[in-house]
């Protein structure tokens, strides 16, 4: 084993911003990987000192503030965008970030989120789409796939009773105050890199004062899906991405 330290470069490890904590996530939860994405992007942009994070209620609630070394507040369920609005209005130089699940942003918080877009706030939102309410035990979320079984859709989600899955960045892209909207995953190394780029772009839009940026992460919830961590990867490729295509839905340098 070569071992002289002069010959060795650490290529990756725990990011500086990533706090040591006995992870708040279940084994194989992609939120852990997304945490790395967030840390690395904030480090690369050099904005850790200006960053104020707002964690929604959901697994992000415990996870994000406990694992990323910036200022944080948790928020009442679904209300991060309103809280972020006030913070950003008062401290326009801060980098204000909300991290919200699909129940948090897509259900209870949909109005709060949409109204922040109407007001044309200059914020960044990380939207965690695991297609279920992970924290509370795997109930249906607005993003649950058609036919997917959850604890409140025991026979699978059907259109008649529960409507269609919600596409958040596509929806956001239609709003004039939005500067950036994209969907990504971290379920392969290549996608991990793309996700970093997306998030970086979104935050840059905020820094440049252009407008709202939202990045959806399609991510696995092994207990919520009743699958093993590795099975989840296939489920993402085969099922989730069919409903939730990856890509940028909006990327503008000036809102109109």
């Amino acid at each position, binding site marked *: 084993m070569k071992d002289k330290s002069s010959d060795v470069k650490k290529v990756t490890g725990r990011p500086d911003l990533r706090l040591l904590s006995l992870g708040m996530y279940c084994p194989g939860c992609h939120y852990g990987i997304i945490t790395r994405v967030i840390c690395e992007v904030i480090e690369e942009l050099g904005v850790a000192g200006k960053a104020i994070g*707002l964690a929604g209620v959901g697994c992000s609630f415990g996870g994000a503030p406990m694992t990323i*070394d910036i200022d*944080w*507040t948790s928020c009442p369920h679904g209300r991060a965008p309103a809280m972020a*609005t006030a913070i950003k*209005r008062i401290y326009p130089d801060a980098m204000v970030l909300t991290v919200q699940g699909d129940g948090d942003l897509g259900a209870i918080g949909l109005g709060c989120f949409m109204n922040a877009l109407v007001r044309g706030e200059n914020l960044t939102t990380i939207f965690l789409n695991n297609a279920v309410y992970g924290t509370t035990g795997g109930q249906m979320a607005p993003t649950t796939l058609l036919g997917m079984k959850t604890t409140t859709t025991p026979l699978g989600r059907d259109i008649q009773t529960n409507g269609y899955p919600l596409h958040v960045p596509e929806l956001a892209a239609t709003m004039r105050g939005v500067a950036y909207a994209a969907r990504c995953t971290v379920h392969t190394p290549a996608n991990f890199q793309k996700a970093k780029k997306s998030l970086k772009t979104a935050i840059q839009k905020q820094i440049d004062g252009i407008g709202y940026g939202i990045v959806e992460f399609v991510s696995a919830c092994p207990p919520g899906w009743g699958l093993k961590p590795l099975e989840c990867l296939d489920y993402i490729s085969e099922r989730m991405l069919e409903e939730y295509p990856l890509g940028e839905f909006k990327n503008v340098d000036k809102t109109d």
Partner: protein
Amino acid sequence: MTERILVAGNNAVARGAIQAGCKYFFGYPITPQSEIPEYMSKELPKIGGIYVQSESESGSIYMVYGGGLTGKRIMTSTSSPGLSLMAEGLSYLAEQEIPAVIVDVVRMGPGIGTGGQGAQTDYLQVTKGCGHGGYHAIVLAPASGQEIFDLMQLAFYLADKYRGPVMVITDFILGQTEEPIELRTLDFGPLPEKEWALTGKEKRGGKRVTHVAAFFTYQGILNYQMKLIEKYAEIKRTEVRYEKYLADDCDLLIVAYGSSARIARGAVDMGRANGLKLGLFRPITLWPFPVEAIAEGASKAGRVLVVEDSQGQLVEDVEASVKGRVPVHLLGMWGRHNVGGGGIIHPERVIEEVEKLNEG
């Protein structure tokens, strides 16, 4: 001399807040308080402040929550149904110990109620826990334009001092009544630095601040509750405020707050002019409630008449204070003369009630 101007109570709310250094207002229109956000939307930008019209009262309270986290002086105002929409947020403000001032210009409830009715139907809600979890907010109940202006300043001070939401409650009558106020600045003394404010960690030399639920500090959750209990006990010990008017030699003590206290004061004057020995006890803090002072005043007078423009809410606290030692009567909203949309209990009606009691 400080300036003296004739303004409506709603205007005094806004001016009092600005006098206290509040530059950030988050609000939503609702009668009978819309003049407050309207004034703020006009004035705050002039002083480098910000008015954000939220999408709803829930929006307002969560903006207030976020704003309060920055350590700045923050407020919102609303009326009854809007206050209900703030229930969850209020509970969070209390849990997370965020200073903020919330004004409720009460309209008649329940339900949609009506903005054009001078009513006091939110007493239980504001004093007993609009939100879940057994938190409390200090509740200030001014009774004149000047007092509104002054108590707004006190409200911001108390919010900072005790780190939590403070409520100021008025109503249609107080909000619309125009009276001269002196634009005086009140100084309540120094306050500690807000080290807990979220600013981005570079402003604190890289030391981060987090505000997460008490829930994450498992070993500390009971400590958290004990701290809260102690804080409330401390407030009860030190912040009780009330005013007495001819209450020391009366044979009937009227207890009333806010607009009803003004009306009752009119009645006391009328009564005294006609040989009725009336006195007035006016709670200024509805929470903490002046339990002992009322008990004492009631014992001295021998009987109590509560005047409140509601179904009977304040009366419960008065009864609990008096503990059955002397009789407590109530003139509630049925005492209203219902003219047009605006039912009102007039001082003449109070006197009528007193005379009924005197006849036995």
